């Protein structure tokens, strides 16, 4: 088992990303979907940090990661608010119930 390098970190990031996408695509529960989003974002965060360590990207990577965390929080907040509103109107947070708009 050799020493840990960039590729391993990227691997982790990629795995997180894929898990996130799958989670988004399969969960029926809004909260679950949002968790998927978080996973995706964090996957890329891992990448950023890793890159900033191993490549000339430098501090930019770190800074970006920080910003992303903040933005993710903001987004999550809004998303949850909307989910709540959805719940008020549909008395469920099952995304499959939202199928009035189509065509």
């Amino acid at each position, binding site marked *: 088992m050799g020493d840990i390098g960039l590729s391993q970190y990227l691997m982790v990031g990629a795995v997180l990303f894929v898990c996130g*996408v*799958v989670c*988004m*695509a*399969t*969960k*029926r529960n809004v909260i679950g*979907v949002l968790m998927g989003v978080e996973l995706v974002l964090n996957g890329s965060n891992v990448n950023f940090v890793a890159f900033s360590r191993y490549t000339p990207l430098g501090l930019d990577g770190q800074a970006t990661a920080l910003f992303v965390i903040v933005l993710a929080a903001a987004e999550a907040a809004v998303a949850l608010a909307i989910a709540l509103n959805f719940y008020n109107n549909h008395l469920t947070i*099952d*995304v*499959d*119930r*939202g*199928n009035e708009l*189509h*065509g």
Partner: protein
Amino acid sequence: MSETTGKILMLLLTAAWLLPLAGFVVEIYWLRLSHRLHKGAAYCAVGCIGLGFLCSLSALLFWGYQNNWSALTESDHHAHAVAGTAAHASGSDQQSAVKHEEDDDDDEDDGDDDENEGGHTEHAHAHADDADHAHDPHADHAHAAPVRKYATGTYYELARFSGLRVSLDWYIDSLTLVMFVMVTFIATCIHLFAIGYMKDELTEEYEDHEVHLHGGGHFSRPGRFHRFFAYLSLFCFSMLGLVLAGNIFQVFIFWELVGLSSYLLIGFYIERKSASTAANKAFIMNRVGDFGFLIGMMILWTSFGTFQFGDRGEGAHAEAGLFTMVRGHDGKLDVSEDGKQVYLRNAEGERAEKNGVPLTISYVLLVAAGLGVFAGSIGKSAQFPLQTWLPDAMEGPTPVSALVHSATMVAAGVYLAARFYPVFTPEVLLGIAYIGCITLFIAATIAVVVTDIKRVLAYSTISQLGYMMLAIGVSGWGAALFHLVTHAFFKSLMFLCSGSVIAGCHHVQDMNRMGGLRHKMKITAYTMLIGVIAIAGLAIPGTSIGLSGFYSKDAIVASAMAYSELNPGHFLLFITPLVTAGITSFYMFRLWFLTFAGAPRDAEVYEHCHENPRIMTTPLIVLAVLAAGCAWGGEGGPLYRLIVDSETVPAVNRVISVGSSHVTLPSHQGHESDVHHVHATAGILALVSALIGMAMAYLLYVKKAVDPHQIRMQFSSVYDFLVDKWRFDALYEVMFVAPVHVISAWCVDFDRRVLDTILHGAAKVTVIAAKWDRFFDETFVDGVVNLVGNVTYTVGNSLKVVQTGRLRQYVMWIAVGVIALFGALFSAIPK
């Protein structure tokens, strides 16, 4: 003819031509000027045309005075004339040298004078030199431009395209003058007659017994007296314009205009279906002829670049007209060796060149052009196969039939053919001859069985026009025009007589209901008799004294005979007219006997019929006099000379055609000429057959030797065939009318079925695509995404079958999209 003379003549004739137009404008708005019952419109019309007559008469006199009647009097040049022209016109067969010596002597000792000296003399010398430098006394003015026997000029230009110019021109020669006098004179008489004939239109309440309304009862309308005369004036204007026209395009214009006025006059009783149908028929059939006319014009226009008849301008910048271009000044076609091309001439008569290349027209095209123009004549003068419209045209009031459909308009076809004689090649002439031949026979046969008095006359008109055409075809150019004029007189006379009969018998036209009318209407009867004799061509046997018809028909038969002697193959061209001469006199006398002789067949008609007022009878008498005497002196007489003075192509000598059909045109002048040889014989034969015809008519309808009904029974099939006018109408109905309607229906279908369907189809496709698009959105996306969703899910952690929902499909689509695009790019990235 000198410049100034031409100008003056032009002014006079133009006045005569435009007066009726002014009259038309006044009369059409008569109701604005005065009330319906006023005869003023008629007086206006008569005044206009009468003045016109005076103008044209004075023009004729002035013209005669100018060249002190040289056309009629002796002249010493003619010898050379004949010689010269003979020499060069007969250039095609090489016997000139000898021939004109003889000609000289003969003509010297017997002073048979000859109308076309002046000009032709000049031609003679000019060409004597060109051809072979013979020792000619007049060699000094060898190249002097020939004296023109016509005057021509331009009113104004219609258009000019670089070199090409189309203009309104005038062209005056003796023929023009004669036609003017003839037309205006006859028209005046007929106008006068019409005043009487149309008087029952002078009413607010004109009851028309021919028309039955749906609700039963008769149709009644305010009278249209003024409009009738307006139309007549319009016709006179168009007809005179046609005669005065200086180029073929202009002829076409007035050609159509006379067509229009005839349409209006035939359809004068617009409320009668029969009338309007007849009017349409007339117009459309004429258009069929004009179709050919148009093609002829195209060919001429494209290959000659001008419509002019006569040359224009003097000296260097003289423009050659059509006639000169085709015939030069010596009257012969300049055909290339292989006989495929005809060289055009310039104003001097030499071959025309354009930057070094001699201008030519292919012989075939020239023939086509001739036939095309003649097609126009066919339509207008109701020749076979377009003859069927003329009898129907009798729907119009009788004066119309007299003026338009016998004396003048229908003769315009003959006039055109005669005017265009120089452009016709022998082949065309042959065609013309046969058309005329067929027509005169068919018409005559039909005339035998018809009982409607006007229709008999109509058919006789067709038949007589056939005679004229035949004459032109057999190069009896003068004879044709001669007959045209005489026929105009006696035929208008007879129509007016029939009109007077009809008026007298209160619009009864069926001869079976008449008979014995001569006791009641003397003037009509005997003037009519004069007409009948004239048309039958009777004369006092032995002497050559007869009425006008005799001379003219005699001339025609003579030239026909001469022709068939030279071309034995075409003997029918002589037999048919001969036989038909008999038939003609038969049916004409039949008409007279049935109408005026014998005992009245319908008492009631006989009771009420009466002679007409003077306004109607006077014209009859005047016309009768002229019908009897206008041709006085025959081919020596003034009329004939006047006419042939305008001859553009000397027909004095034999011409052997160079074209495919080897016909020989007979020569016409002098005692050696082919016509002269046969003249006496032909005259006798014609007279005999005419007498036979008359005799038969007498036996059948006066002596009742055999009952006509018997014969009818015997030959019922023939009889029916004739009564059905040889079934031409039925034939055309099947051949043309029906197909046209079918095709037009088809066209509309095509529009609706095909073109629009394509359009709608396109629209549908888009709509369907749109639908599919939605379907794609719902089904396909769902489908694929479900699949992928399931896969990933199973790859995930659960084995549960998951039914994915819409939103997640969307999200899934992101991933799918990325992968898909990546795949796409991965496969094809430009490097």
